[in-house]
């Protein structure tokens, strides 16, 4: 029978009438045909809901086929006809007691699909019976029905005790029932993240493992996915589960294999690495992963995305399997691209020749995207495998000679990276690159070429001409190119100032005056000021030595990688994104973590047991905006382990107090100092020892000497309270950006201890627990001195105030602005990031006393040529030491020892914000006229 597809969505009245008559016919066959016609209309999207009572009337039949058809109709229309759906309840109840198990199962399956709240309570009794049915087919269908009912009315399911019955089914004798019960429980548990629905214990695990061997492929996947959420108690249990899961690796169904790989990857985390079994397991993982590449393309794609993760987590598994990732001509493009990515990840000195030969071939194929990626891959190989760099460069040059436009452009982009990895090695190729300047039409390639010209301006005779040629169409370029052009010309100017003054002025004016782009404008202004204020400093900044880039720019950040490993086989592993990034309403779902290796107990054998897996050091990643975040994540958010960094000289200086009794004389002498203090090149041991000589009276009222006492008096005079100034809390993290967690805070210094005062407010509906905090590396090594103490769970609408003591012994990295602090806060829901700025006065120690000699030595240490002098008029120096002091500070800051301001400022003395902005500005502008002006204004104001 063929049904014609009609274009309209409404059955005509005539049709309905005709069907109605047929449905009410006495003849069974006619009835059945009529229902079929109804279903056919329904399938093509016609509205046949008007026939609801007539179709339901056909429900009471012994004919299984007719019953199925009626049920099909019911599932489709019950929701739109809830009142009439009740008419069907009686039949369901009756069918659930039918002697035929197929009918019982059909009834229980269908009734769960009728998503009408009103009738759910009528379904409880039949469901209860079916859950205990003697036939496993009925029981397994009933198990799924519990999940369906839970989706409609969760409370009802809990009240009726169905969850317990479902848990009991895990011990069912039939493996399919076990599998469905596991699937249903997992589904329900997903919407109740904090429930203990799946509190697996060794007994239940044993039952699951037994059922695993006997159930269908799908059931095996349910069970494996469920197992993956279990945390074994120790490495022995972990090993025994691994042993029983390993046979699944040889299953023909790729999804079973991937789920088994997930369990193994997760549980082997716990195995001691010197265990023989650990090595055996690693070896067993390779062949099934290779076999996955013979599956259908879509499955290959999923497998490759997952292998990409596995290779990053445990490179040793597939290190000898390079060849299987070579691209086949008939692979779909999405498979080709994924294979390329894995090839580079696996590239090593041992196989690089093979890889390069392949890549060179790929670069001559027809598919543009693929060719581009192949060219880029050659560059990545050069950066990854140092020994191959030369060959890679010559391969790239060969490719440039082909003059195929997109090949040339890609090659230039990667050569730029190669320059950054191996400076002063391959610059001889620049000439060849310059020949292709005119053919570059893609922003990325143009930007790369401009970067190269700017970076090596001194070696390119006509660098100015080249850059000038780009400048003509400045406003038509993309932002990327504009920014690069600006920087390159500033570089050029600093290298060849005499010939290029006009050019630099031109670009600065284009960037600042003729552009609407704030990034470009700001960068232009910064260069402009830098150049006009202090060309020497500008040179230091702009032409600073760049950090070398490292081999992997695209490694997945380790915490995310761990989470993704726990999601092997799922969409998350395909997207390389955590589920919370793409699943609505997934807040409150715990991020999955790999288990910790059994290290604390009897098997604490090797020092390198950490959750980061094998001992290979994680490759450094090029610092970029994204990677700073990466660093935060990297910190693991456990209570901080204080790693004392090698203290840089500037830190030492900062740590000591420069303020001492010599204050008075200093201000007087500061004008005279200029000439006669020779710059002693290094500070020497005397300075290093100075901190130890400081009185250990931090925290108590400072033992004040001479000038300091005066300062104190004045402080009182200004009206500051005796305690330090604490800014009111401001909101750092908005609830809407942090799944309901709002954080506001401020910084304070109390009794010599820096504290971060936080208010955590729960604006979500669920309770928050497990708070932890971590800082990114920052300018002054601020780090939590201990874990954040949030002892009680944070209920909705509750606010908790926490004071977190901070130490200054964390890792140091210069931030922009200097006082910027990037913070990660974790709770049971997610990890959130925000940044805040602390007042610099926070860092100033209470005890400002310093020996005069030491102070002078310090002063002397600042090279002479860093010193500048200027006259400040109209300042009433007699108004107190405060002004002298301020001036002194400014002078010192001005002298370009820019790191020296974590020092002696007596914060009690001043309105902190003024001091901050003062110091900050004078630093940023390196003592530009503006800053001095500000200081004068400020001094006048407080006088």
């Amino acid at each position: 029978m063929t049904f014609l597809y009609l274009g309209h969505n409404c059955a005509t009245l005539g049709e309905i009438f005709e069907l109605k008559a047929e449905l009410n016919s006495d003849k069974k066959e006619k009835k059945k045909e009529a229902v079929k016609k109804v279903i056919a209309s329904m399938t093509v999207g016609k509205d046949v809901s008007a026939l609801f009572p007539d179709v339901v009337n056909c429900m009471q039949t012994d004919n299984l086929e007719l019953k199925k058809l009626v049920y099909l109709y019911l599932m489709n229309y019950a929701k739109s006809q809830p009142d009439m759906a009740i008419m069907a309840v009686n039949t369901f109840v009756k069918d659930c007691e039918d002697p035929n198990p197929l009918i019982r199962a059909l009834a229980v399956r269908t009734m769960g699909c009728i998503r009408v709240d009103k009738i759910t309570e009528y379904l409880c009794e039949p469901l209860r019976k079916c859950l205990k049915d003697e036939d496993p087919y009925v029981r397994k269908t009933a198990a799924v029905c519990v999940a369906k009912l839970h989706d409609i009315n969760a409370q009802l399911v809990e009240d009726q005790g169905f969850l317990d019955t479902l848990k009991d089914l895990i011990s069912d004798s039939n493996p399919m029932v076990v599998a469905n019960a596991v699937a249903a429980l997992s589904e329900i548990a997903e919407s109740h993240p904090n429930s203990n629905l799946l509190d697996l214990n060794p007994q239940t695990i044993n039952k699951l493992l037994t059922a695993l061997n006997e159930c269908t492929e799908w059931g095996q996947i349910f069970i494996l996915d469920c197992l993956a959420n279990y945390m074994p108690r120790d490495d022995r249990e972990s090993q025994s589960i691994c042993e029983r899961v390993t046979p699944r690796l040889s299953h023909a169904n790729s999804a079973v294999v991937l789920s088994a790989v997930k369990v193994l990857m997760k549980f082997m985390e716990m195995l001691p690495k010197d265990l023989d079994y650990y090595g055996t397991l690693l070896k067993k993982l390779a062949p099934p992963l290779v076999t996955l590449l013979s599956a259908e393309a879509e499955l290959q794609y999923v497998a490759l995305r997952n292998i990409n993760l596995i290779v990053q987590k445990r490179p040793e598994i597939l290190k000898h399997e390079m060849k299987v990732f070579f691209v086949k001509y008939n692979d779909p493009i999405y498979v080709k691209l994924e294979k390329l990515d894995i090839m580079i990840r696996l590239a090593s000195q041992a196989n690089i020749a093979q890889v390069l030969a392949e890549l060179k071939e790929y670069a001559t194929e027809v598919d543009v995207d693929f060719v581009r990626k192949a060219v880029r891959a050659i560059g990545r190989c050069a950066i990854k495998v140092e020994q191959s760099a030369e060959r890679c460069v010559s391969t790239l040059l060969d490719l440039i000679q082909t003059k195929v436009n997109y090949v040339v452009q890609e090659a230039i982009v990667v050569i730029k990276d190669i320059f950054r990895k191996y400076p002063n090695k391959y610059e001889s190729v620049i000439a060849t690159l310059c020949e292709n300047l005119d053919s570059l039409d893609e922003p990325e390639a143009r930007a790369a070429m401009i970067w190269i010209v700017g970076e090596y301006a001194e070696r390119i005779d006509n660098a100015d001409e080249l850059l000038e040629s780009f400048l003509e169409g400045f406003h038509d370029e993309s932002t990327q190119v504009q920014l690069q052009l600006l920087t390159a010309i500033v570089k050029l100017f600093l290298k060849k100032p005499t010939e290029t003054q006009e050019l630099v002025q031109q670009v600065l004016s284009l960037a600042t005056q003729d552009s609407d782009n704030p990034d470009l404008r700001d960068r232009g202004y910064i260069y402009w000021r830098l150049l006009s204020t202090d060309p020497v400093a500008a040179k230091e900044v702009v032409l600073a030595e760049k950090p070398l880039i490292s081999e992997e720019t695209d490694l997945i950040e380790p915490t995310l990688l761990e989470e993704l490993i726990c999601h092997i086989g799922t969409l998350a592993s395909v997207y390389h994104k955590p589920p919370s990034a793409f699943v609505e309403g997934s807040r409150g779902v715990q991020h999955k973590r790999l288990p910790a290796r059994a290290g604390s107990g009897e098997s604490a054998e090797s020092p390198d047991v950490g959750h980061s897996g094998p001992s290979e050091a994680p490759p450094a990643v090029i610092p970029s905006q994204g990677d700073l975040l990466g660093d935060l994540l990297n910190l693991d958010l456990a209570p901080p382990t204080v790693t004392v960094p090698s203290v840089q000289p500037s830190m030492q200086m900062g740590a000591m107090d420069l303020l001492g009794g010599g204050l008075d004389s200093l201000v007087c002498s500061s004008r005279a100092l200029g000439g006669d203090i020779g710059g002693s090149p290094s500070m020497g041991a005397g300075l290093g020892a100075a901190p130890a000589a400081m009185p250990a009276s931090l925290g108590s009222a400072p033992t004040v000497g001479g000038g300091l006492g005066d300062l104190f008096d004045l402080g009182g005079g200004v009206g500051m309270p005796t305690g330090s100034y604490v800014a009111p809390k401001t909101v750092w993290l908005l609830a809407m950006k942090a799944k309901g967690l709002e954080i506001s805070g401020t910084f304070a210094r109390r009794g010599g201890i820096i504290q971060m005062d936080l208010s955590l407010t729960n604006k979500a509906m669920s309770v928050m627990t497990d708070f932890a905090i971590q800082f990114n590396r920052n300018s002054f090594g601020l780090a939590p001195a201990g874990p954040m103490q949030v002892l009680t769970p944070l209920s909705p609408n509750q606010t908790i105030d926490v004071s977190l003591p901070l130490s200054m012994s964390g890792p140091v990295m210069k931030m922009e602005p200097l006082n910027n602090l990037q913070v990660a806060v974790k709770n049971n829901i997610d990890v959130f990031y925000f940044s805040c700025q602390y007042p610099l006065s926070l860092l100033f120690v209470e005890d400002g006393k310093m020996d005069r000699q030491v102070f002078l030595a310090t002063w002397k240490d600042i090279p002479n040529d860093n010193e500048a002098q200027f006259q400040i008029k109209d300042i009433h120096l007699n108004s107190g030491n405060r002004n002298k002091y301020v001036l002194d500070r400014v002078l010192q800051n001005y002298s370009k020892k820019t790191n020296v301001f974590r020092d002696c400022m007596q914060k009690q003395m001043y309105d902190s914000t003024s001091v901050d902005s003062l110091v900050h500005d004078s630093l940023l502008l390196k003592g530009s006229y503006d800053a001095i002006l500000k200081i004068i204004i400020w001094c006048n104001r407080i006088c």
Partner: protein
Amino acid sequence: MAASAIFILDLKGKVLICRNYMGNVNINEIDNFMPIMMKREEDADLSPVVIHGSTHFLWIKHSNLYLVAITKKNTNAALVYSFLYKLVEVFTEYFKSLEEESIRDNFVTVYELMDEVMDFGFPQTTDSKILLE
């Protein structure tokens, strides 16, 4: 769990048959599938996952048909693809060949099979020997 609904579409994106297993995704979401596919075809990007908003379409192509599973969750993608291929296998065994015509001619059987092989998004028995009972 694995799929909220499964569709069989013709090459133009017209729904030949659809089975909504969970009721948590609007069936009309499928209307977004084909326009995205057309656009991707222009870009020569035919990766097997299509996203529209928070809906994910996992699809395979068999002769002149698209088999599409949709979900809003972090579903087991490997399971979905191997299930879709299994579905093709089962239909082929029933109807000799799986194509537009065979779906249209056997829609009652197709519905019955789809009901049998998946329940509430969980794949069930897909062994055609057992299904033939």
